[in-house]
Structures are given as C-alpha cells and as structure tokens.
C-alpha cells in the first residue's frame, strides 16, 4: 500500500459516439445503445469489415465548440479538450486559475490521421510544403501540449502511450502525482480517433467484427474501433473537501504489469495480466473478496476474453461469484488508448448511480465461469469497482475506485453524489 494523501474524482468529461457529455454517454449505456455503423471517414469498403463507432459529424462541424477548445489542429485533441472542459466545469473549476494543475494524458492514435496525411504527401514526394499538415500536431505529444497550453496548466504533465491500456495508466500516473504532493489537482485521461492505418491493421489480424461486438460470448467475433475521449478531474481529498466539491469516488489504487509473453497476443494463462490487478488491489489495500464490480477490457476477440476470464479467476478465485463483470465495448466500440478513461467514467457512474448497465449483445456464455452481466442492468450499491485495460506489447493496467463514505465526507464539509 503506497497511500498517503488520498485522491478523489471530482469531475468527469466524456465524448463518445453518442455525442458530447457524460450524461449522453451514460444514458447511451443505460439505454443499451450501440454506436456501431459503417465508416464514413474513409473508404473502408476494401476491408474485411467496415464497422466503427465514429463521433457524430455534428460535433466535428461545431465551429463554436472548436474555437472554445482553442482551435486544436488535430481531432483526438479536440475530443480530449472538450472532455477536459466538461470535467473542469463539472468539478467547479470553470473560472479557477489552473496554473498549479497538472495533466496526464494517455493515448494511442492521437495525431494518427494527420500522420496519414503527412505520409501520403511524403510517399508521393509532394514538394508543396503547404500540403503537409502542421508538423507539431503530427506527433502524439500534441494532445498534452494543447491541453496544458489551452488551460494554462504548469503543474506536472506527461503523456503515456501503452497502446490500449494508455489512459488507465494515465489515471494511475496522475494519482501518483497527487499522492506524492506534487499537485493537488490533476486532469487524467485522453482522447483517441479512428484512422485508416489502425482499422487496416486490426482487420489484417482479424480483430474487427463483421456483425456485432459480443464480449464474453461464445460466438464473439471481435470489436469495432470507437472514437472518443474521457477526462477525470482527480483531486487530493482534503483539497476537495475544503472547497465543498462533489466527490464521485475515490481512486484507491492502481497497478501495471507487462505480460512478457507476446507483442500482440494476450497470455495463455492470464497470469501476466493478473499481476496488474493484484498490484492494484495491493496498492489500494483492498482484498479480492471486497470487490463487487469489474469493468472489463472485454474486446470480444477470441484471445482477450478467454485470457481476461483466466486473469479474473486467478485473482478472485472463490470470490468470483460475488462479482459482476461487464464490457462497454459493444456500446461505444474499442476507443483504443482512450478506452480506459471512458471505462473508468462508466465505472465511477456505476458507483455513483448505484446501477450497472449490462454487456450489450452478449449471452455471457463464454465457458469461463465468470459472472458477466447481460440483457438487463442491475441496481446495485457498489463499494469497490475495478476498471482494467490490456494492450499490445504486453501492457496491462488496472485502477480501483471506491465509493466515498457520504457521512464522513459531509461531516468534513464535502458531499458525495
């Protein structure tokens, strides 16, 4: 256990295929909606599957939102900035100077569409310098640089890129900055977009479904890529209480591991992935038997779901039966590096709303013995909830959220939702 200063979540912001806003995102999950559709951003007819979950075109076209976000030169950055605006407003920081705030972004595909444009010009030996996109916006670090610049944040800031586990890692990294006393308030999360290279790549390894995403289902056939962003405002507990902030949940701990098994495949036995979960619980000082809900990585690929089930069995053992496990990837798609942040927001909402939406399209009949919540959501008071993400390169990450004791928080001057 490495806790000293306690870290709570006081603001949430999301952009998803359902549109802008946490409530839009959450109500989509509760209403069993899916953003799955044919790709409009590029000609995907040449690929095995042409399915994805893009953010609404109206959002891309909204000039006022774009300008209010500081006119970012890159779309994942736009989504992340919009989410950050919402999260900061939600936390009550709209007019607060943010000089001492910090930021940790986690992303995989940010700037990738600009890189494609750059690559096309370069490949075709274009001598027209104006045809190339802005060079600074072509690198992944642009998302971080734009957000800290736009909000005037001069506190600790970094960007992690651990494939599809990036923004879960980012939440943990930001938590450490608060625990260590380097900041009282951090933004954590990230934005990601659909790009042809990544869609082509996942098609080439047969990971994209041709019909529907069915996590933890025996008939699962893969995922579709989603676009979106999730940003959390993390805050030191006393700092939040002192200003009477609404507290959604506490970040109790996080853990990382590398499976050291294969560059793309999840491990055979799930042990490498389980190490991240075990480290997370150890960091939180919470035993497996106390955890009630897991928002799974749940990509609905053949390999991931079997490995993830093994990892859960390895960690939770006999207490597996008291868990509920869901995946939201059939709703909003696999949002790559941003998926962890959106899933963390879903996890926090499950705690705050005392309701867990089901895993869409799934019968949960994957023969793995894990209790997947399907068909209907469940009203449930959740004290401890885990969100976990896995990615290429063996990256595994997990973060544990806890409900904040309402009476204690109120007595200290704050209140829980």
């Amino acid at each position, binding site marked *: 256990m*490495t806790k000293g200063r306690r870290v709570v979540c006081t603001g949430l912001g999301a952009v998803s295929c359902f549109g802008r806003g946490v409530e839009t995102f959450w109500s989509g999950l509760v209403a069993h909606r899916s953003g799955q559709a044919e790709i409009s951003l590029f000609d995907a007819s*040449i690929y095995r599957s042409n399915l994805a979950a893009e953010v609404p075109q109206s959002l891309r076209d909204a000039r006022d939102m774009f300008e209010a976000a500081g006119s970012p030169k890159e779309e994942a950055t736009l989504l992340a900035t919009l989410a950050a605006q919402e999260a900061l407003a939600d936390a009550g920081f709209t007019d607060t100077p943010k000089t001492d705030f910090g930021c940790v972004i986690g992303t*995989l595909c940010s700037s*990738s569409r600009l*890189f*494609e444009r*750059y*690559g*096309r010009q*370069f*490949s*075709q030996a274009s001598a027209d310098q104006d045809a190339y996109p*802005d*060079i*600074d916006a072509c*690198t*992944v*670090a642009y998302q*971080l*640089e734009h957000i*800290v*610049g736009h909000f*005037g944040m*001069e*506190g600790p*800031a*970094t*960007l*992690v*890129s*651990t*494939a599809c586990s990036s923004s879960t*890692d980012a939440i943990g*990294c930001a938590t*450490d900055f608060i625990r*260590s*006393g*380097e900041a009282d308030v951090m933004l954590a999360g990230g934005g990601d977009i659909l790009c042809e*290279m*990544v869609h082509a*790549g*996942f098609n*080439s*390894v047969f990971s994209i479904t041709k019909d529907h995403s069915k996590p933890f289902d025996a008939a699962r056939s893969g995922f579709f890529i989603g676009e979106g962003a999730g940003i959390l405002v993390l805050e030191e507990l006393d700092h939040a209480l002192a200003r009477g902030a609404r507290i959604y949940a506490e970040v109790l701990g996080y*853990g*990382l*591991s*590398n*499976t*050291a098994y*294969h*560059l*793309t495949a999840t491990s055979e036995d799930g042990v490498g992935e389980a*190490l991240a979960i075990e*480290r997370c619980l150890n960091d939180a000082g919470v035993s497996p038997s106390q955890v009630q809900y897991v928002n799974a990585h749940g990509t609905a690929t053949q390999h991931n779901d079997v490995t993830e089930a093994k990892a859960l069995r390895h960690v939770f053992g006999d207490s597996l039966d008291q868990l509920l496990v869901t995946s939201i990837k059939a709703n909003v798609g696999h949002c790559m590096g941003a998926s962890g942040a959106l899933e963390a927001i879903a996890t926090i909402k499950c705690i705050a709303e005392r309701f867990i939406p089901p895993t869409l399209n799934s019968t949960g009949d994957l023969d793995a013995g894990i209790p997947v919540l399907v068909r209907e959501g469940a009203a449930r008071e959740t004290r401890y909830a885990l969100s976990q993400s896995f990615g*290429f*390169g*063996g*990256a*595994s990450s997990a973060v544990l959220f806890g409900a904040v004791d309402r009476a204690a928080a109120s007595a200290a001057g704050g209140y829980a939702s």
Partner: protein
Amino acid sequence: MNRQRSQQAVITGIGAITPFAAGWPEIHQAISSQAPRYEAWNPDLEPPFESARLGLVKHYPREKYFTDRQLRLMDKAMSLTSVAAAFAMEDAGILVDDAVADSDNVATLLASSRGEAPSLYRFGSPLFKPTVGSVNPAHFPMIARNVACGQVAIRFRLRGWSSTIASGDASGAHALARAAEMITLGRAPAVLVGAYEVLSQISLHQIKARWRKNEMTDVVAHSTTNEYVPVEGACFFVLESQERALARGKRPYATIDGATQGYRFDHGADGWSRVFERHLANLPAGRATHPAGRTLHISGAAGAAQVATPWQRREQALAEVVARTCDASPTPLPRLAFGDAGALTAMYGVASAAQALAHRDRTSDSTPDSAIVSALTERGAYSLLSMSA
C-alpha cells in the same frame, strides 16, 4: 514540503548505444578523447542547412541477444532498446547467464520522442500510394509506441510495472522521474528505464519541417560551437533501492533524489525561481542540498552558445537561477558528441552526471557531490532532476 521516502533510488547500471560507440564506458571514453564524426546528411533528402549531419547507429551486438529469425521480425527500435537494456543490466550485475533475478517484479519504463515514425510509416505505406495496397500484419504491432518496451520485457521475461512515455523530448526525463518514484514507493526491486530514438527518411523530413517551422535553422547554422545532428540511439539505466544495491555489494553510480516536471510558457527568471524553489522543497529531507560550488548543472536542451530563440532564453533564465542558488555553472551537454537526441537528451545528461559523481575526486573539497540535470524543450516542457553522490 519535504517528502519522506522509505527507499532511495540509486543508479547501478548504465547501458547505451550511440552512432559512434556501443556501451557506456566506450561512449564515455570516445567523447572524452575527441568529438565523434558524424556522417553526411542523407543524399536522398535535402538537408535543412549545409552543416547538418546524421547520426545513425549501424553496429551493435544484437546477434548476442537474438537469433537471425528473431531479428527479422523486429524493427530497429526493438533490437536497439533490447541490447541497450541488456548492457545496463549486465553493468548492474543483474543479468547473469541470461536470467534476471526476481524478473516477475522488475519494472520496465521506456521513453521516446519521435521513435515510432519509421515503423508507423512502414506499416502505413501501402495505404499512402495512389492505389491503395494491403498492409503487412507482421508490421502492425510496431506502430504501438510501447512495443519496444514489450520486446525488452519479453526478451528478459520482466513482468513488473511497465509503461511507455511519449511526451516529446521531455519523455526521457519523465520516465526517469517515474522510475525513481517506483523505487521509492517500493513497487519494484529494480526498474529498467530507458529511452530510444530511431530515424528514417520520413523522420528526417519531419525534423526538417520542425526546424523550418521553429526558425531554428539560422541559430544552429551560424553557431560556432554546435552543428545540427539528429541521432539514433538508446540509453538505459538500472535503478534499485540503495538498500538492495548495498546488500548485493554493488556500488551505485549516484542517487536520484527527486524530479520536478511541467510546462512553462513565459521566459522570465522570476517564474524559474519559483519552479526551482518548488523543486528543492520537494526533495526528500536531507538529500541533494546542492551546496554552493559543489553542484554540477548539466543543461540538456539547447546548449548552444547563442541565445536567440525563446527556447534558449528560457534555458538561460533557468541556468541563471540555478547558478545563483547553487553557484553552479551550466555544463551544456556536448551536442557535438550526442547530437539532437530527442528523449535521449535527459538520459545522456543523467549518465554524464552519474559518471562524474561516481568517479569524483573524493579528496577535493571543490569536487561536485551533487548534480542537477535540466531539460527544456522548444514546446514549453521542462524537467529538473536532482542527483547526489
């Protein structure tokens, strides 16, 4: 607020590969004796200016750690980082008979600023032609920035905490700070932390575009002390707790006492004073007090003689604050030696500081016994890292 830490993070191994030498002792010897000579700019691409050179890594003992078949399935980032990581672990004495003790808990952290561009372009190339072709699935994983870190983990079966930082040229410093934190928090018995950069045609095109955009060309081209050399390379450290290093009889190079990082958008000295005061206040009690006259300040980013750009003005303002507080003169990283090293810049700075602290003259009162490594980027990021003997 001085932080109380249960563990102190020490450097017990350094491994590096540069265009002119492989292995930290060899590199140190090479730059001590003469400035390395770099090759001419790629003839297929017009250089950003006449004095530009290139630093490509061509020879390093990758066959010692991988079979030919394994190497065929890797990109340069993966093999370069794995070999540099092996060097660091061998130097630390934790890689014995191709095995690492307690490997399930050894953490891996990697950083790169521009390292993914070659493999990203290679994978995407079929899509960039006027007639779209098929991508090669074997090249797909290499577009993820953390795959080189994953390869290091796979090769040496390291399943500890693992992450990859991609926050531009500040990445190396950020990774080092996070690695030191992992040791002080007791999360890993050892952390293998490193950075890498690799180049290709598109990388050079992008570098040229960046220098053109930031109007840096004239500054460097007219400088008498620097020439512009983008380089490839990899540099790794093994960090351990001081307790563990001493228990196994390993004398550390240096202690990493703390780090501060963030963004600053103005150039004034007042702001840097506050940043430096915050950095000193955040150091653990009793560590790296940076006594006047006994502090080495390695200034990593620009290091140029001329002060003409906002980037360099910021660096000068910071250097003045450090000099005033610690009576330390900045020692620019010799760019003639290391080149424009992206995320490696901070790594080479820390390696140079660690070398100086480990081999200092203990009989002299004026020998530095602490070091500050600072790195600023032209895009506003800064990092400060304090070390002590």
